[in-house]
């Protein structure tokens, strides 16, 4: 089974700190990580491979340094990695990203299953997975929390919903996006890390993908960011003092005054 896992490199936000003086993000020490949801996608790809055989290819669109994330995936056990990188891809919104990744998947060829994370933690859109599926005219299931069965041309999954889950089957080739509940990702093995060190990460540019210029980067993106601002600061911040009973009483009174209960 040929599996393609799409991973995005994102800032590991725990480490983002604000310089109180200049009010800017401090960049040093902000490490980039594999989008957390995509780690579950890699793990699931590896598990399927271990079960039914096949190959796991990692696909990532991003700047050159995103190679590091691909190497991490190889250290976990992925077979190969491809980076789509080109200045012409800069400014892609989810439409253009879906298109570009789809072109990459086509060039890899013969994918039976494409796995994406549920969403990327920088943009939080959850649109790229379904977008790729639609571009490639494939069926998809979002928010997969368990693969119940997978074999040639067939997959049955549990899709996480607000009130429970749904059991859905579909034919392969297809795409799924996965949630955290699906597995516990492994750590890279020593052997894997050695292999990753040596691994050659192929880079494909817009030219390599034969992409239509109108469909990539800023030009291919229907949406435009016109303004960025800080969310309004929350007012208030009243500490309630006193003995425990007193604090509880004060709080209950406040909540009652606000007519919440």
């Amino acid at each position, binding site marked *: 089974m040929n599996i393609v896992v799409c991973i995005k490199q994102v800032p590991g*936000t*725990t480490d*983002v700190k604000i310089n109180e003086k*200049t*009010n*800017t*993000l401090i*960049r040093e020490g902000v490490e980039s990580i594999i989008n*957390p949801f995509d780690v579950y996608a890699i793990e699931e790809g590896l598990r399927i491979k271990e079960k039914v055989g096949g190959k796991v290819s990692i696909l990532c669109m991003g*700047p050159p340094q995103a190679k590091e994330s691909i190497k991490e995936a190889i250290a976990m056990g992925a077979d190969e990695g491809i980076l789509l990188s080109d200045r012409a891809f*800069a*400014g892609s*919104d*989810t*439409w253009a990203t879906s298109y570009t990744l789809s072109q990459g998947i086509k060039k890899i060829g013969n994918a039976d299953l494409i796995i994406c994370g549920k969403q990327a*933690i920088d943009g*939080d859109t959850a*649109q790229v997975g*379904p*977008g790729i599926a*639609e571009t490639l005219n494939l*069926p998809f299931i*979002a*928010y997969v929390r368990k693969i119940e069965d997978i074999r040639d041309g067939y997959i049955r999954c549990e899709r996480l919903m*607000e*009130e*429970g889950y*749904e059991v*859905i*089957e*579909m034919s392969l080739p*297809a795409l799924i996006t996965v949630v*955290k*509940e699906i597995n516990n990702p492994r750590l890279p093995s020593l052997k894997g890390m050695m292999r990753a060190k040596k691994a050659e990460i192929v880079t494909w540019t817009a030219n390599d993908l034969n992409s239509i210029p109108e469909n990539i980067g*800023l*030009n291919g993106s*229907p*949406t*435009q*960011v016109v*303004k*960025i*601002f800080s*969310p309004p600061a*929350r007012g*208030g*911040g*009243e*500490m*309630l003092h006193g003995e*425990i*009973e007193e*604090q509880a*009483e004060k*709080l*209950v009174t*406040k*909540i009652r005054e*606000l007519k919440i*209960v």
Partner: protein
Amino acid sequence: MSIKVIKDKCIGCKLCIKSCPFGIITVDNKLAMIGEGCNLCGACVPSCKFGAIVIEREQVVLKDYSGYRGVWVFAEQRKGKVEGVAYELLGEGRKLADRLQVPLSAVLLGQNVAEQATELIAHGADKVYLYDDPVLANFQDDTYGEVFIKLVEEEKPEIILIGATSIGRSLAPKIALRVRTGLTADCTGLEVDTLNRNLLQTRPAFGGNIMATIICPNYRPQMATVRHKVMKKAVRQADHKGEIIKKQFDFTAISIKTKVLNIVEEVTKTINIAEADIIVSGGRGMGGPENFKLLEELAQVLGGAVGSSRAAVDAGWMPYSHQVGQTGRTVCPKLYIACGISGAIQHLVGMQSSDVIVAINKDAQAPIFKLATFGIEGDVLQVVPALTKQFKKVLGGDY
């Protein structure tokens, strides 16, 4: 397309540095420089008082979109009943439609849902496109997607609003991709520019640290998924008139590749956190799984749900479905009580739009207090039971 600093105009004032959400602008020798990793978000452009930063786009030939008119709302239903979020969309959609002086329409797909169509009209819809078909009883991406796409192609709306639910966030990208238009995820604010009929879509980005306003000027329809419980529900007006347009779709014409075999409702002990008006949430500071009972008791008295930080989920104290935050769920209840939660940014982004936030923590320096409307410095194991007792006392009832 590219971003440029015009040397002659830049005076090295450093204003742009602050505006960059990625912190990649530097000023060297009185000249701003834009570093590697710029994604052309454009935040710096208006920050420059001297017009020294420009983003050059290749001119897109503007298509004529005058044929695209009207505001649509996806009337998501589950088990034959329209979801609350759809009524919120109708409330917001009504305002946009009035500003643009166009009709407001609802799109309703399901089985035996005709009565629901009448309700949609009472809540402000001028038209309801109704597809009543056993095939559409439950949501499925390929059936719902194909029906919706065909209707969009036929009727050409200028705005489509879809609830940012599991269903909506799965359905919307499929439509946007196919009809080749922009889609803004999980919006919390909508506004319309009547001059060029652009929808100004505001949403949290970069983990909620930053709000972004997004437009889709060169494509129609303009699509947005909208966060639940942010917009006000439309008020029911029994005398509002509207038209139900019965539609049919020929499913033999498409290949349906997915099949829903079973829908399982996991009856959790508590209410679904995405829906709850009150959430009592616990973190590592709860000390162990057994202490979450205290939170359940408080939640029960308040008629709320129990949430959790990731630390408590990772420790196995609570199931993932209760996790609030960046890798969990985004919630915005009327009241969020954070118990033994430090307030890491990844947790805050999932709950910071709650109306009232209460923090209980024994560390007065915990970042959660900066966000909290009311804070109590103390031990959760003592404060929470005291709260439960007090609420019971004033709310009465037998628990």
